[in-house]
């Protein structure tokens, strides 16, 4: 593994659209970029057995997740000619309609940005030790499982 600094991807609470706008703005000085790809995960108000999901409470094994994300980041940068990659995942309680995941990749041409973004999203869901507890409007809960 390289000696690059391990970046934190976690922050408490929902990801705000203004944070995303700010992140996009910061790339206007990188004039070698031609394409940006973004994926955002939003908490759904699913109905399960007649109960509505009010929020998802996210917890993680943070140190393991950050190590794993670091590995994924290195592999993706080796695989695709990317200019940048930014990942943010919420912890704590995120209400239905709010954003809990933000993946942002940029490259000179569109294809690497798009392919890397998709691959990172898949790997985050499959490989990072993060758990979502779906909290229903009546305060009962069930644990989400990625399929």
């Amino acid at each position: 593994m390289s000696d690059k600094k391990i970046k934190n991807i976690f922050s408490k609470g929902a990801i705000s659209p203004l944070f995303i706008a700010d992140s996009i703005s910061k790339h206007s000085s990188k004039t070698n970029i031609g394409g940006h790809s973004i994926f955002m995960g939003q908490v759904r108000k699913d109905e399960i057995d007649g109960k509505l999901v009010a929020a998802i409470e996210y917890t993680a094994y943070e140190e393991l997740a950050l190590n794993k994300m670091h590995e994924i980041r290195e592999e993706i940068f080796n695989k695709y000619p990317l200019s940048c990659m930014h990942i943010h995942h919420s912890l704590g309680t995120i209400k239905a309609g709010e954003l809990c995941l933000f993946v942002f990749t940029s490259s000179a041409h569109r294809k690497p940005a798009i392919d890397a973004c998709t691959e990172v999203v898949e790997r985050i869901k499959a490989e990072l030790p993060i758990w979502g507890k779906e909290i229903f409007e009546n305060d009962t809960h069930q644990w989400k499982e990625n399929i």
Partner: protein
Amino acid sequence: MEIEVISFGKIAEFIPQQKISLSNVSNTDELKVYLEKDFPALAGIKYKLALNKNIVQSTLNLNNNDVIAIMPPFSGG
């Protein structure tokens, strides 16, 4: 030897963080048998172990003061 057990997600609802003294358990495969006997609810669900912050892919030997995490299927994103 003594190991520390931490747990996450739905598993944390029935296995709280704790120190466990082990005898006759030397690797992660034997630990799984031990845990599933001590916490029968674990036997019915899918889970992975991490040893000292590394996901256990195949059996690993245990040492005194190791930290074992018990993790149900991931559901981030």
